[in-house]
């Protein structure tokens, strides 16, 4: 077999945009589209509760049912499976049928494909069992939070151990996670690789639309879940004197909405905060373009795509100083980082940027330049995966 041969690849994922409005797992969707250019690719993913329009039907996407349709809320929701379990304990009842259905579907699809690419620990676990049964190689990609959870959760640690041992290759989306895994599993360090996520560069506007008013516009994008920590941004916003308070748009949906609304009301800053809800991913570039500063206050991340996208749109970044994020957002170069436990520090960093439009422009330009220099496009990501696929299939 030669390296340029088209392979049959099955992508296994619990997050995928199965409706046109969904933002679930958009990066997996990008990977799917990019790999499809040279290979025959299909996706196995859980079904959702929303009916998919026939016009949107893609014959290469296999959705497995696990409970009656209207009860299928375990996957594709903001925050993924952990958030779904936290939000509604009854979802635990779906887990046995979920795993069984995913396993059967994956085994069947594995027989039709040369390789399985699994995303996150749970998919890696199922894919590796299917791989063992059908003798199909598996590449497991860990996307960050699953590695973090393994230090606190026995089940996640078990998934991680199993995947690292059984997968042909293991991929992380950040250098820090690669090093961490290599330290934990020195005997398998040869098969652990770092492949960064890309950005859909042609769709990211370079030109910024200056705000017609003097009010600086802040933006954060992410599921409304505890880990994303939008509460801290809201609290910091309240520290501004009213006369110079910037405007904050929070894009995303999730189980923290009511808590955030209550906080906004309590702080009496309703006029300054817009909870915009979930917005289709294709609309986001316009929103990046029209805002001045991007903020990410997460407690933990893999390698946040929203930061890559905001940088590609020449936005200056204010981000919490955590692993994964600080590989992209470099303090003083293309971003201002803050101590994740300090509202005052976040306020200070935002205020610095609000008062200095030149600094905003220079940090934004540096971010865009970094994306271009590192060639962080989905095409490059796909090339790196293709290389592993070729090796795995030999």
């Amino acid at each position, binding site marked *: 077999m030669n390296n340029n041969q088209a392979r049959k690849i099955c992508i296994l994922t619990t997050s995928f945009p199965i409706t046109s409005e969904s933002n679930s797992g958009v990066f997996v969707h990008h990977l799917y589209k990019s790999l499809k250019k040279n290979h025959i690719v299909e996706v196995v993913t859980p079904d959702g509760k929303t009916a998919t329009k026939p*016009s949107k039907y893609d014959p290469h996407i296999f959705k497995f049912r696990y409970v009656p349709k209207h009860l299928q809320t375990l996957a594709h929701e903001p925050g993924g499976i952990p958030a779904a379990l936290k939000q509604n304990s009854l979802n635990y009842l779906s887990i046995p049928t979920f795993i069984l259905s995913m396993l059967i579907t994956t085994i069947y699809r594995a027989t039709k494909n040369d390789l399985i690419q699994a995303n996150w620990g749970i998919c890696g676990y199922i894919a590796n069992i299917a791989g063992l049964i059908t003798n199909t190689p598996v590449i497991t990609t860990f996307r960050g939070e699953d590695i973090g959870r393994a230090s606190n959760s026995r089940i996640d640690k078990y998934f991680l151990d199993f995947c690292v041992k059984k997968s042909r290759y293991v991929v992380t989306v950040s250098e820090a996670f690669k090093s961490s895994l290599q330290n934990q599993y020195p005997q398998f360090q040869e098969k652990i690789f770092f492949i960064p996520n890309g950005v859909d560069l042609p769709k990211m506007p370079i030109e910024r639309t200056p705000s017609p008013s003097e009010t600086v516009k802040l933006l954060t994008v992410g599921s409304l879940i505890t880990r994303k920590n939008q509460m801290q941004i809201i609290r910091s916003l309240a520290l501004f004197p009213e006369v110079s308070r910037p405007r904050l748009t929070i894009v995303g949906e999730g189980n923290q909405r009511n808590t955030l609304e209550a906080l906004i009301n309590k702080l009496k800053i309703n006029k300054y905060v817009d*909870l915009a809800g979930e917005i289709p991913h294709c609309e986001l570039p316009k929103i990046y373009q029209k805002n001045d500063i991007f903020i990410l206050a997460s407690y933990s991340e893999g390698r946040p795509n929203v930061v890559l996208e905001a940088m590609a749109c020449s936005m200056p970044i204010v981000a919490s100083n955590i692993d994964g994020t600080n590989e992209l957002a470099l303090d003083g170069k293309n971003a201002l980082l803050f101590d994740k436990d300090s509202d005052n520090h976040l306020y200070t960093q935002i205020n610095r940027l609000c008062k200095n439009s030149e600094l905003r422009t220079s940090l934004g330009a540096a971010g865009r330049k970094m994306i271009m220099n590192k060639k962080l496009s989905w095409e490059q990501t796909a090339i790196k995966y293709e290389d592993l696929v070729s090796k795995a299939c030999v």
Partner: protein
Amino acid sequence: MCGILFLKNPNLANDEAESRIRSALKKSVHRGPDEQNFIHVNGTYLAHTRLSIIDILDSQQPIRDPSGRYALIYNGEIYNFQQLRKSLLSHWTFKTKGDTEVLLAGLITHGPEFVEKLEGMWAFVLIDNKKNEIFLSRDRLGKKPLYFSRTPDAFYCASEIPAITELLDTSPSEDYRSTADYFRYGYFLPGTTAYKEIKELLPGHNLWVKPSGEVIQKPYWKISSSREHPNQTQAIEEIRDVFRESVQKRMTSDVEVGAFLSGGIDSSLIVHQLSELGITNLKTFTLGFNSKSFDESAEAKKISSFYKTDHYSSLLTSWNSDQMETIIRHNIGQPFADPSILPTAAISALAASKVKVVLSGDGGDELFSGYERYRARAIMRWYTRLPTSLRSKAEKAITALPEPQAHHSRSLLKKAHLFANLSRRIGSETPYVAPRVHSDASLSHILPQISQEGHCAPGLNLETELGDIEEMMLRDLSIYMPQDILLKVDRASMANSLEVRAPFLDHKLVELAFNLPLSWHRSFQGNKFMLKKTFQKTTPSDIWRKKKQGFGVPISEWLRADMGVQLSELIGSFDCPISPDHARELLKQHRAHKADHGFQLWQIYVYYLWLANKPK
């Protein structure tokens, strides 16, 4: 078709007047990219921007009579100008072959009564230097626009509001009575605009500005609606003849004429008639949509294949919602809430790339009772007799079900939602003026300070002998059609330098259709009976199978995306009568999918766009 401008202000230095005329001309170039001219006659400026359709090499405007006493600027098409020309030959030596000189000669020879002989669409200004009088006229149904403004000393006119604001001494001020009307109906009532100082010449009216400055506006045409006709078979023959003549007249042109073809009944009948008249190689134009709920391009393709037209279709895959701001700023100059102006502009751009003139099916629904709201009104009469508690429970049950995004022609549930909505506002819609966007109660929430304000619709006779549906149809013809449909078509097409002609809106056909008994047009089972009886046997059955659809614009989706973020920023940013708290609440409910407030929020959004762009 063209743009016209008029300025008379004795207090203005010539340099300043000329500069204002030039900048207003610049703002009107899209209406006539072929030629721009202006003249200065005794302190009066007349300017014209031309889209050459007839007598392309000559017929320049402004035009003057040989004595220099009269000067005319005119926007429109007079379809019977050849016939009128012949009748004027004994009085006038013609130098051109176009309709402009015929209009000038007729007005000079016969006076204002000549207007009654015109067939077509027009808006013009004639000055009589000897009598020091200005005479304005607008076509019977209001196809061509004409705005004016006056002060004790000065008088200004223009085809569009963005141009007339360039002529005025000061920026015009918002008319809050009009603002309330806009939120009631989605547009302004005839004769009014968003501005106190700018008025609109009413359709079917002449206007004189006397030397004393006195302004007199009088109707020269009024639709009579006796709803009496002796014989249905004879009426069918008459419809066939008048429609054929109407289409034939509208082929009068020195440039190629095409046709919009949506796949619906009205545009298909026009293509059918053109085929009957022996027109070959007709260019037809359709806009397709991604959403099947709104897409009629397959039906249009079938009709075009049947009549062997040279068919052009464009699929609208993505929307540029920012285009609305451009249209408001450059073409309309005031809020206008009908989002279908965006696809109308898109299909106009497609057609303008191939032809300069198209025929469209506008007016078919108004004349032949095609709207579902007439049926809903009839059902409502029976429904309101049910006990209130029963109605309330039924409406609650409907409202509890999720409202589909689909066009109502494709969804029974959508229809049920619209009906429940109508039931809530029926009190506000009686007596009927035009379809309401907000009921009185809802208006008091969105505009707490000015919800009781508003203009009276001109010529609205609230006590007539007509039935409920006949009244609705008559008012739709005199209010909804000129203020929404015709404004939309004129601005969207002229923004692309395209002339649109509407054969259904020939005044003879209008008079005929409105004199037929309503029961000949519609019943509970259906509508447009007279059109069907007239043309069904001679046309392909596909035309009649299609359910009525409109241009669907996904405003509800936009408002849950980038546009919602923009709107959120705009709310509270202006000193205006909108309650920001109520607007925010509507947006919140809409984003959370608790209700579909898409149209109300779009209306608010457009109003803010206008506030952000209006002359300061």
